[in-house]
């Protein structure tokens, strides 16, 4: 449904005489019809720029892209007919009602008046907005507004829907509601592309995820396969300030400990260990640290998350970048 090769975009540097800044450097994608595809990455990774290029809002510097059968470079107008796009901030007018916005959006897509009214009605029902359809948008809660935004994005039944950070700033209940709507659209056959910097969102919502950093893709796959790359459990050990190096040395050199797959320093005051059967290993680890005279604080045992995948590929954590 979406195929790109080497899609790239750079911006002139803000400082004079500096080379241009590469916002997106050569992204290859192959998004299948009817899947929820996610771009996961820290802020500034190039997710939004990529999405805006695919949605015809920014012209890429280079590469190729076909979206729903239309060529992004040769025929952006046709691409626009086949896609919907919902920006992070939405784009509703305070003084206008949801129904008025939906009718207008349908008409901007070239629909006649009667048909636009009918579609607006349908959308209001599908997104459970009927109750406050005729109140001005300024009176809506964050979650209601988000549902209006998405309803606006799909009023013309596009083949592909792009959502930029669809649940930023929402409370957990509204967030769940938005996820339900996105899954419903997927189940109706729409291809959905979302950007997110929430690990749990990528994990729970997306069928497939591209992890992006510094304008490039660092890993791609289903959340399950990505996490499977990180073998074993994750043990997080909190330490006193500046103790991390000494603790790491102690664990690496101590004989008779469970085998570590990987060991990462977490800033100055913690360790992140990857190893099999973490629960059984914890007492051994603590004993070893105690023997080396290292004082330990909190200990946590986790299943690997997408953040561990990001960390393994980039050496940084999404939550900390």
């Amino acid at each position, binding site marked *: 449904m979406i195929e790109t090769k080497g899609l790239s975009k750079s911006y002139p540097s803000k400082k004079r005489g500096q080379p241009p800044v590469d916002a997106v450097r050569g992204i290859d994608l192959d998004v299948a019809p009817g899947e929820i595809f996610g771009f996961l990455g820290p802020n500034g990774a190039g997710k939004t720029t990529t999405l805006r290029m695919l949605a015809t809002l920014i012209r890429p510097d280079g590469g190729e892209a076909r979206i729903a059968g239309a060529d992004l470079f040769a025929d952006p107008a046709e691409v*626009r007919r086949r896609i919907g*796009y919902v920006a992070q901030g939405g784009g509703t007018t305070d003084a*206008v009602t949801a129904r*008025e916005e939906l009718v207008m959006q349908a008409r*901007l897509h070239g629909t006649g008046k009667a048909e636009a009214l009918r579609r607006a009605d349908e959308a209001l029902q599908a997104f459970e907005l009927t109750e406050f359809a005729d109140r001005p948008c300024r009176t809506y809660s964050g979650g209601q507004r988000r549902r209006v935004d998405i309803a606006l994005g799909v009023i013309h039944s596009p083949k592909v829907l792009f959502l930029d950070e669809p649940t930023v700033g929402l409370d957990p209940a509204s967030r769940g509601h938005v996820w339900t709507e996105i899954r419903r659209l997927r189940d109706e056959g729409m291809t959905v592309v979302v950007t997110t910097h929430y690990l749990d969102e990528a994990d729970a919502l997306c069928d497939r995820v591209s992890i992006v950093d510094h304008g490039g893709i660092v890993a791609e796959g289903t959340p399950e396969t990505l996490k499977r790359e990180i073998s074993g459990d994750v043990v997080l050990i909190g330490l006193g300030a500046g103790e991390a190096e000494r603790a790491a040395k102690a664990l690496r050199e101590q004989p008779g400990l469970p085998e570590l797959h990987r060991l990462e320093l977490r800033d100055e005051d913690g360790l992140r260990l990857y190893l099999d059967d973490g629960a059984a290993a914890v007492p051994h680890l603590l004993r070893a640290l105690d023997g080396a005279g290292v004082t330990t604080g909190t200990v946590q045992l986790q299943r690997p998350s997408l953040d561990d995948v990001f960390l393994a590929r980039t050496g940084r954590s999404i939550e900390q970048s």
Partner: protein
Amino acid sequence: MKLARDTWLVFQRQLLLMWRTPIWIAVGVIQPIFYLLLFAPLLKQVLAPMGATTYAETYQIYVPGLLAVLCIFGGLYTGFSLLGELKAGIIERARVTPVSRLALLLGRALRETVALLVQAVIITIIALPFGLRVGPLNLLLAFLLMGLLALMTSAISYGIALVLPADEAMAPVVNTLAQPIALLSGVLLPLALAPMWLQSMAKWNPFYWAVEGMRALFSGHVGDSAVWQGLLVVAVMTTAAVYWSARLFSTRVR
């Protein structure tokens, strides 16, 4: 056809928004009324050298200038509303649809033009009791000239809003632009009273030609060459401004 339809759609929505906050029309009218009531009467003495001996003749010279000021300032300030729409993502949402880019500009600029014309009609009516008399054809032509002027300044203002790197820059830029434009078109006092160097400078200002044309129409000289010259200059400038601004609407990313 599609352009006309899309323009109408955008225009309708903009009109609805204005209708829901009618305060702006009132604000737009109040200031000119103050000028009409509290400033124009001073001019009778001042304009005597130009042959204005009665209040009626004074208002024939002053009112067209006032209407031009309305277009210059009102039009150039309309870009502020676009800043809000840009920030709210409304323009971006429209740009992902197949809607005509020119319509996104024209629908908005025409809304502003209509609003300014409504204000102009109100001001003209208020000037009647002071003795202002204009023939219907002349008035129609004057409003046509004014409409083009408003379309031009609105288009320029939207263009500025799209070009500026920061919202805070809008007010100083617009003020710096509007001041000399207004002064160099002789809106307060005709430039016929000005020294030669000022007059020759004003000839480079398209708004000067517009004001001259409107004054000729209000004085009943429809055949005066200032009329067709004003219309021509303004029509050319309006086309250029709309072209420039529409291009920005389709390419500029914010």
